[in-house]
């Protein structure tokens, strides 16, 4: 029941918040709820057995018997940290939006909780249709978040976001249906169970684009690629980020983009091993191009939020690169980078929100000399910047290093290109940092009528967990990687014959006990 609780508790919270009579206490209520959810998700870590690559804490009930669709939740080393990332960021988001979201507070928190359920479900569902339901559901609250609480061009941005991502995923639906028929062919009974999908041997013809596995592969890959987003399908992202309110940006960058890369890891690569291998060059290419392209375009953005948005394109390029390296380094690095990006880009958006609340501007040129005025803010921003440019001992480094190492081992030529991202990453972040924080005071900073105040207690409380995670993940990566090692090794080593076994609760202990005898 624990996974169901984790997934659906936020939905319950959403209902409670929706009917809560007192607007004034909604924030406190929501914050408390999100903490409860986080603590509950910590229990997952405790229960998780890191020695097995199998699927744990499984809950499986037939949902739509006619089509073999089931209510199927499970967790393995790939999902675990993404779930934790989601539950970790939510309280932070609520705290960070304490003052910036002042209208329709109830609706906001309801959306947030619904979104949380959708995201958690995406990471934990192991039935294709069940997954698809969560996948699509996640669009709706995010659509409202951008559209209602967003900036001036919010409607344009939110519609673009919705249509883009929706358009990407419809073909996936057809592919899922097709695969359900394939299971029927193979086993006699239709099933949307991912584990049954894994067992399919889908014919692959190398050169032919219009061959079954290739087409299915691209139908899935397109959905995930738009979500990631990879170059050249990325243009919805900068708009969505710029117009989204701070919490929207944080969730979008922090978790939602990971749904795409997670999809590659969970669905595309193990389901279509031959096609993935055959087309790996393409995805590594767009990954590498994305890294450089995102970085270059980020460099010349006049709007700091847009800069960070493009930096996401660059960072997500790394993840794609790592995943398609098909080795433990690349995959682990990719997974790690998902978490890193969630934390550091999330933190960047939160801080951009903080400064925006003070000055109501995101134009880099209007800043300057912030370091002298807001020392505490500067320190936090700088630490996060370091994480973003992957300085060793911050989380970012571990991810980037592993990804590049994996890429080098798999396809050195892409590593040669991608490694320039290490340089460009420093260029755009530090240049932005210099323009905003150093030098003479800019017009917004020097404005005597609106003196800027340094971070208050709440804002510091928002930043501290993020900064702690940055260093924890940078200094003790094994604390995290150990949990996903078995799953990733299984994926890497058994890619062409991938399978997940369901680990019965307690079975692992028995096995260990037997092993010890």
């Amino acid at each position, binding site marked *: 029941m624990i996974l169901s609780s984790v997934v659906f508790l936020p939905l319950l919270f959403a209902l409670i918040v929706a009917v809560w009579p007192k607007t004034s206490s909604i924030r406190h209520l929501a914050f408390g709820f999100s903490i409860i959810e986080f603590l509950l998700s910590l229990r997952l870590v405790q229960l998780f057995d890191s020695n097995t690559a199998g699927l744990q804490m499984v809950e499986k009930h037939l949902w739509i018997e006619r089509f073999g669709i089931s209510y199927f939740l499970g967790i393995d080393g790939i999902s675990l940290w993404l779930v934790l990332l989601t539950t970790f960021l939510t309280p932070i988001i609520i705290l960070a939006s304490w003052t910036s979201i002042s209208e329709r507070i109830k609706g906001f928190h309801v959306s947030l909780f619904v979104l949380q359920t959708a995201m958690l479900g995406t990471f934990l569902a192991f039935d294709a249709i069940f997954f698809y339901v969560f996948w699509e559901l996640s669009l709706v609250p995010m659509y409202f978040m951008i559209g209602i609480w967003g900036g001036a061009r919010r409607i344009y941005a939110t519609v*673009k976001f919705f249509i*883009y991502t929706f358009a990407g995923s419809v073909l996936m639906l057809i592919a899922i249906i097709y695969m359900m028929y394939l299971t029927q062919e193979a086993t006699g009974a239709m099933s949307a169970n991912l584990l049954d999908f894994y067992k399919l041997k889908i014919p692959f013809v190398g050169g032919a684009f219009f061959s079954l596995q290739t087409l299915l592969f691209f139908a899935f890959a397109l959905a995930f690629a738009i979500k990631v987003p990879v170059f*050249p399908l*990325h*243009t919805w992202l*900068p708009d969505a980020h710029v117009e989204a309110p701070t919490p929207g940006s944080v969730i979008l960058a922090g978790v939602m983009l990971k749904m795409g890369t997670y999809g590659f890891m969970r669905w595309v690569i193990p389901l279509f091993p031959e096609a993935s291998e055959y087309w790996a060059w393409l995805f590594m290419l767009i990954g590498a191009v994305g890294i450089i*392209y995102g970085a*270059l*375009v980020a*460099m*010349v*953005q006049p709007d700091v939020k847009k800069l960070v948005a493009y930096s996401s394109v660059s960072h997500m390029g790394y993840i794609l690169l790592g995943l398609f390296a098909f*080795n*433990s*380094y690349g995959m*682990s690095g990719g997974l790690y980078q998902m978490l890193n990006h969630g934390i550091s880009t999330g933190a960047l958006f939160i801080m951009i929100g903080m400064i925006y609340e003070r000055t109501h501007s995101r134009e880099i040129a209007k800043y300057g*000399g912030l*370091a*002298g005025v807001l*020392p505490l803010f500067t*320190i936090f921003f700088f630490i996060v910047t*370091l994480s973003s440019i992957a*300085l*060793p*001992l911050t989380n970012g*480094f*571990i991810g980037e*290093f*592993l990804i*590049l*190492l994996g890429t*080098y*081992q798999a396809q*050195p030529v892409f*590593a*040669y290109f991608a*490694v*320039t991202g*290490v*340089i460009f990453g*420093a*260029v755009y972040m*530090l*240049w932005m940092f*210099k323009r905003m*924080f*150093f*030098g*003479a005071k800019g017009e917004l900073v020097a404005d005597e009528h609106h003196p800027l105040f340094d971070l208050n207690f709440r804002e510091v409380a928002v930043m501290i967990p993020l900064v702690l995670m940055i260093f924890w993940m940078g*200094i*003790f*990566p*094994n604390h995290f*990687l150990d949990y996903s*090692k078995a799953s990733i*090794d299984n994926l890497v080593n058994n890619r062409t014959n991938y399978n997940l076994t369901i680990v019965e609760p307690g079975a692992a202990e028995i096995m260990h006990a037997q092993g010890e005898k």
Partner: protein
Amino acid sequence: MNHSLLMALVILSPLIGFLINGFRYKRHSANVAGVIATIAIAISFVSSAILVTDLIAMPEESRRIAVKFFEWLVIDRLKIDAGFVVDQISAVMILIITGVGTLIHMYSIGYMHHDKGAAKYFAYLNLFIFNMLLLVLGDSLLVMFVGWEGVGLCSYLLIGFWFTDSEKAAAGMKAFITNRVGDAAFLLGMFLLFVTYGTLNFSELNALAPTVAESSWLGAVTLGTLFLFIGATGKSAQIPLYVWLPDAMAGPTPVSALIHAATMVTAGVYMIVRLNPLFIMAPNTMMVIAIIGAATVVFAATIGMTQWDIKKILAYSTVSQLGYMFLACGVGAFGAAMFHLMTHAFFKALMFLGSGSVIHAMHEEQDVRKMGGLKKYLPITHITFFLGWLAIIGMPPFAGFFSKDEILAYTFNSPMGSPILWAAGVLGATLTAFYMTRLMALTFWGKSRVSKDVHPHESPALMTIPLITLGVLSVIGGWIGVPHVLGEYLGHIPNVWEHWLHPLIKGIPGWQTLDHATEFALMGTSVGLALISAGIAYHFYVKAPDAPKKIAEKIKPIYNLVYNKYFVDEVYFGAIINPLVNLSRNIWYYIDVNFIDKMTYLAGDLARGMGSVIRSSQTGNVQQYAMYIGIGVVVALSFVIMR
């Protein structure tokens, strides 16, 4: 004492110092912050000293103290420990870092007395030492890289310490990004070595190094070491990535002394020496290193001759001196490189601190044209600077002489060296003598050009004690590495240095001992030329101050070229940075905004267009609707009938 504990003390006490001062970032008192920071480094120094004593006490064949704290990053074949090693090479480094570091911290208390950001300054300085220790103690390339990037960060922070000045902030950024270019190559080197050997651990890599030299340019060892060397050119300011170091002088002067002269910039040399069994098996790489080193020696020295900023002169001098170290590495004289690294740390730190003392006395004036005759105001500074001067121009028996001489001898004699490289080295020495003498003359000697409202005064004891200590070291520092040829004549003084490093340094294949006559001749040539050059400079800048101007007028084009640092910065900006920024603007504008988005809109417009066609067919006219139905029926029927 327990080695783990000692090692932890060495590494962590600067970190703790950083944290303490870091959390006191708003405090202004340089005294408290400085004392905390200095004590932190001093603890580190003492612990290092104990460790090194233990190391010396060990039998020679097993001299190695390795401590593993925890497993840092373990994935598949990649097994990186948070492991640290004190051996013959790193022992020297930690003593230099913490020793010189302590002195410079102490000096900083005086130097930063009036600065409001004192706590921050000392925090950064401690953080730097922490990272530098990681760099030199790390037992694998990856741990080294942690420190490698970490020191780059601290360098960035300290160069841009006075961030309100946009130029200084820009200098910091330039340093970081230039270093990043090198770091990217460093990463590639690591990947290549890891993919080839399956490890990044120094001792394992060195043990796995091939036994036969690799002749191909594209071999793993050659390419790997080349990449690492590119990394080193960034950190150690060699051609073509040296450009950041002169700008780095924007930072507080003690920082220049510590980071940009004595320690961080030598990291590249250290890295090559660490991996010398690997490098020596890649003769092509060695050749590149030697040529780049020699070129840097001369190139930077020429620029140094024309600069007016006291710190800039020292900066170019540093670049040039680092060139010597690389030259040494390139010809296989790793011991000599380390030796020069050490002596350079002493005398260059000394000179930077001395220049700091001068700047302090001159109220932040750095232009040597506005100095002159400071000898009488700053006696201690002058004396110590004088010792440093003697050391750097290679006068026996000062420290610089021994190390530089050894490098030149190796360059001449090593099978990997050549007389041309040697000539470049000697030319560099000659030029060094010239510009350093020029610096001495313009600053301390001759007539005073100090403006009237500046009243120079000698610095406080906190600043002069480090000067004196380093002065002494600049004199005696070289005596541990007396060359055999001299040692024999002076009563069998052993070459302690060579003996100490011997177990870790691979011999140069095909090495033949130089005969004494040649060795003396080489020595004489370089010392003699340096003396002559120093004499000319003395004449020009003390006796006939107008002469340099006239000469400069005569060779104006060349002078301008050199004075403007060969326009390298301009070329970088014009050929790389600006085009890149323009390119980025263009791809954003043309690809993102005008192509991809337009394509999206096109799809939308297509749908709308179709919609409007349909809407225009929707006239509201019944006859027309009936016609549609009729047409539909006819078309459908005629289609159906064609079976």
